[in-house]
């Protein structure tokens, strides 16, 4: 059963979410602070935790910092819990390395769907080929990316996005298409998820992130891999 780390300071919300997650068959570590969550992740193999659900508004170190610290040492999928309309928080959270976000109040069904989608992105890929794009090697079987021989660690969402884009070099993908194929969102998903993930990918893959070679913006339409 997928093992979820839930970091939420409000006891009622935490208990409710823990209840729902357990009913959906997850093993849950529910804690009230970022520090406590990071401690659990510091255990060997990250305590077996497969996904973190992190509230942004936390006492002590906030959700952004928790995301940054998790990202600094692992590629664990992270879902942020935000309040609707806190646009700046969403953008900052995505920049801090979160893969997705859900808006509170959230029903059990929606939370479960998001967790499943994030975990699916960590699952095995459908293609089993390896592509070499001018020094950028994408191993679709081993789910690894190397650039000029050095491994580039990527969290599942970024890796899935790269796999999706590079599977059809030169094809333009709209943000909505990417949201559906990578995040499993319906059309109303927030396209900022895509923009933020592209930004993070460029920072890791491109020599000059401001002048990208691999993931190019097609103004008014979306993104395209190459042409190189």
């Amino acid at each position, binding site marked *: 059963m997928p093992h979820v780390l839930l970091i939420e300071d*409000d006891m*009622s*919300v935490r*208990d*409710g*979410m823990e*209840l*729902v997650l357990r*009913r959906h068959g997850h093993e849950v570590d529910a804690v009230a602070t970022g520090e406590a969550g990071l401690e659990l992740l510091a255990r060997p193999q990250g305590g077996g935790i497969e996904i973190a659900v992190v509230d942004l*508004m936390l006492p002590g170190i906030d959700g952004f910092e928790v995301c940054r610290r998790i990202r600094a040492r692992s590629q664990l999928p992270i879902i942020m819990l935000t*309040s*609707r*309309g*806190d*646009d700046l928080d969403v953008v900052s959270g995505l920049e801090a390395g979160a893969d997705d976000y859900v808006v*509170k*109040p*959230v*029903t*059990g*069904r929606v*939370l479960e769907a998001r967790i499943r989608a994030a975990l699916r992105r960590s699952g095995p890929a459908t293609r089993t080929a390896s592509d070499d794009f001018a020094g950028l090697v994408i191993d679709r079987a081993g789910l690894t990316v190397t650039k000029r021989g050095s491994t580039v660690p990527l969290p599942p969402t970024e890796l899935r996005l790269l796999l999706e884009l590079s599977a059809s070099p030169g094809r333009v993908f709209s*943000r*909505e298409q990417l949201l559906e194929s990578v995040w499993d969102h*319906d*059309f*109303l998903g*927030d*396209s*900022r998820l895509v923009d933020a993930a592209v930004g993070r990918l460029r920072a890791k893959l491109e020599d000059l992130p401001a002048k990208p070679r691999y993931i190019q913006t097609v*103004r*008014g*339409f979306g993104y395209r891999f190459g042409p190189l």
Partner: protein
Amino acid sequence: MRLPRLDGLRGRLIITVVVVALISAVTATALAYRESRDAVLKRAQNAAVEDFRNRVQQQATELDVPTDPRAMARLATDVASGMRASLVVVQYRDFTASSDPAADRTRITPELRVAVRTQSRVSLQRVEQGGKPWLVLGAPVGMDATGGRGGSGQRSGVEIYAVVSLAEEEHDTAELVRSVQRGLLPVVLLAAVLALLAARTVLRPVRKLARATRRLATGELTIRVEEKGRDELAELAHTFNETASALENSVGELREQEALARRFVADVSHELRTPLAAMTIVSSVLEEDADQLTPDTAHAARTVSAETAKLTRLVDDLIEISRFDARAVALTVHSVDMAEAVRGTLAARGWTDRVEADLPPGIRARLDRRRLDVIVANLVGNALRHGAPPVTVTVRAVGDRLSVSVADHGPGLAPEVARHVFDRFYKADSARSRSEGSGLGMAIALENARLHGGTIELAPPAPGVGAVFTLRLPLRTESAS
């Protein structure tokens, strides 16, 4: 130096000063010309009369009366040779003698002849002939007039006329006018330069004020201008500074209130959402298990779940409208395929089969897709709830404008309802029954349209047509907050 604009203050000032200078110069010239011309002509006239009288007195003593044409001709020649007269005519009864028989005698007018016959002094008249001025003198030869024969005052019957040219005097006065005219251009130029200098002293502070006003308008509220001197301009600068200070204070207060409002919205948002988040997640558990509960408990569980969902929507809408009030909203703009977007809105809410959509392919717009979804969902939801089928959604693009019309075939809106349809919590039914929605949907839709620089219009009632709401937006909206 930049040429002044004629419609500007500087241009107007220069034109005014130059016109005044011109009028002054021309008036002064005209008066001077008139006075000097009069004086010159008077002097010439007096000299001519004196000369004429002397000549006639000298020569008339030789004249016997009755006289004969030869003596008359000699008299005319003698008088003419001694003075500047171009023509001297002597008249006696029907005889006329002239110093220049070929000369034109019409310059001696009948009026002058009458004056000479009726008066015993030298009569004179100025005439113009051939474009030249002439002085015509006339006198009876007798005691009173000329001191000649007949000194007893009796008239001898002999009349003598002299025509003297005034061309030289006219030339002198014309020369005076010409010299004044030559002086006009420097005077006008000097006036223009002086006007420019005067304009600068006025315009420099005015320009500074204009610059300061522009900067004030762009939000630079600390801008002030120098208050120099004690004139009206200094007073204007002082008033500007006072206004800017007052504006700075007011805006400061407003910004403070706005910041407080934003803070309040954020706090309320968090405080309300936290218990709602707990209620929502727990009630979803209750709803999932409702089938295994007793009917009463199941009903209670479903009611709690449904009401929690309504409360969540109400709180969400309240917070959303408060964020608009606090201007704490932002647009996330992308290029959107309109047909795809509207279809998505209908599909996400299960309305695809209930709504007829006229969505031409290829219409793309730059807008916030999530906010477009909110607008379209509110308009269509409203039509489905309050109107009658068929409900149609039509997307059109004309020029750089986009329109999305939602029409139903219900009874339409009464005028008093139409006036308030975008009001918050407005209910057409005075019974104040609870609406299905939050009562804020249309207000939020309108705010979202305005955020894009657009609007939502309600068409005037027409027979056979229900309510028709049209969202109008620019095809390209720039990101803004």
